């Protein structure tokens, strides 16, 4: 499907967040057609039952995005999948390394602060930096993984790569997190913090991509 339709400026009635999820996951040229189909059906349902129409819309988004994700993985090819897995692993190790050698120092600093409002500020800054660092790492790893396909920055700023990376991280955290011993527990806990950070990073770069029309 090579053609794409730029939407006219007509106010959409369907849930904005659900639309955003669709736009983030579906290829751009397809997203417009699917959103149009959903909008058409949604408006017809909304007149009769507004609440159930919203539930219907979300359900459609959830069941419609999985075939696209599956298709993307199937069409990626073994080399690209291998590259993605390797990059995810390297990205994961980089995050862990960063966490152990730099952020852990930060954690010690936080631990030595006296109780009070200052501690809250220091903790907030520490976790904000940690969150930001992981999000950026996820986006850059995604860009590297899909480098040969479309170009580094386009991929780094697209939702596809980061979402795929998140899924891989989730898988890896489950595998690694099987044990409750020392370092493994630490890695699992850090991964649990890294996941929402990566997700946030992915969504932020999707917004940036849409705004900058990359």
């Amino acid at each position: 499907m090579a053609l794409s339709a730029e939407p006219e400026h007509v106010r959409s009635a369907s849930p904005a967040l659900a639309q955003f999820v669709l736009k983030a996951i579906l290829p751009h040229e397809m997203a417009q057609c699917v959103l149009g189909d959903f909008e058409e059906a949604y408006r017809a349902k909304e007149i009769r039952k507004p609440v159930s129409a919203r539930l219907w819309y979300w359900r459609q988004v959830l069941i419609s995005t999985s075939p696209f994700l599956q298709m993307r993985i199937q069409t990626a090819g073994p080399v690209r999948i291998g590259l993605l897995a390797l990059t995810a692993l390297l990205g994961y190790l980089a995050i862990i390394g960063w966490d152990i050698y730099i952020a852990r120092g930060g954690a010690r600093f936080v631990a030595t602060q006296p109780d009070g409002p200052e501690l809250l500020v220091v903790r907030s800054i520490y976790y904000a930096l940690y969150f930001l660092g992981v999000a950026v790492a996820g986006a850059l790893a995604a860009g590297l993984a899909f480098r040969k396909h479309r170009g580094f920055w386009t991929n780094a700023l697209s939702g596809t790569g980061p979402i795929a990376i998140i899924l891989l991280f989730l898988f890896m955290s489950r595998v690694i997190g099987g044990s409750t011993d020392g370092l493994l527990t630490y890695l699992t806990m850090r991964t649990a913090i890294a996941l929402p950070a990566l997700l946030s990073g992915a969504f932020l770069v999707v917004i940036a991509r849409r705004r900058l029309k990359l």
Partner: protein
Amino acid sequence: MTKSNTLGEFEIIVLATLMRLGEEAYGNRISTDIEGRIGRMVSVGAIYTTLTRLEAKGCVTSKLGEATAERGGRAKRYFRITAQGDALLRQSAEAFGQVFDGIITWP
């Protein structure tokens, strides 16, 4: 038959629906028609991924239609079965006929 020129079950359903709907085949219409006939909810996402695959096989073509306010200003994408898709669909139907020959009597 090689893998590239065979059709899956859902591909057959979608192609047959395109034949039936003719010029009016787009996402919602295809979904509604299939649901009405096989009594199973079919996601628009599944239909579009199947159509994308069929387009890559040369079985369907698509074109953009009009953008309407009811669709939030977005255009419909109309799909049509190609001669190749038509031939492949008939070939698949014939193969099914042979598989079920003597077992099922078609109405």
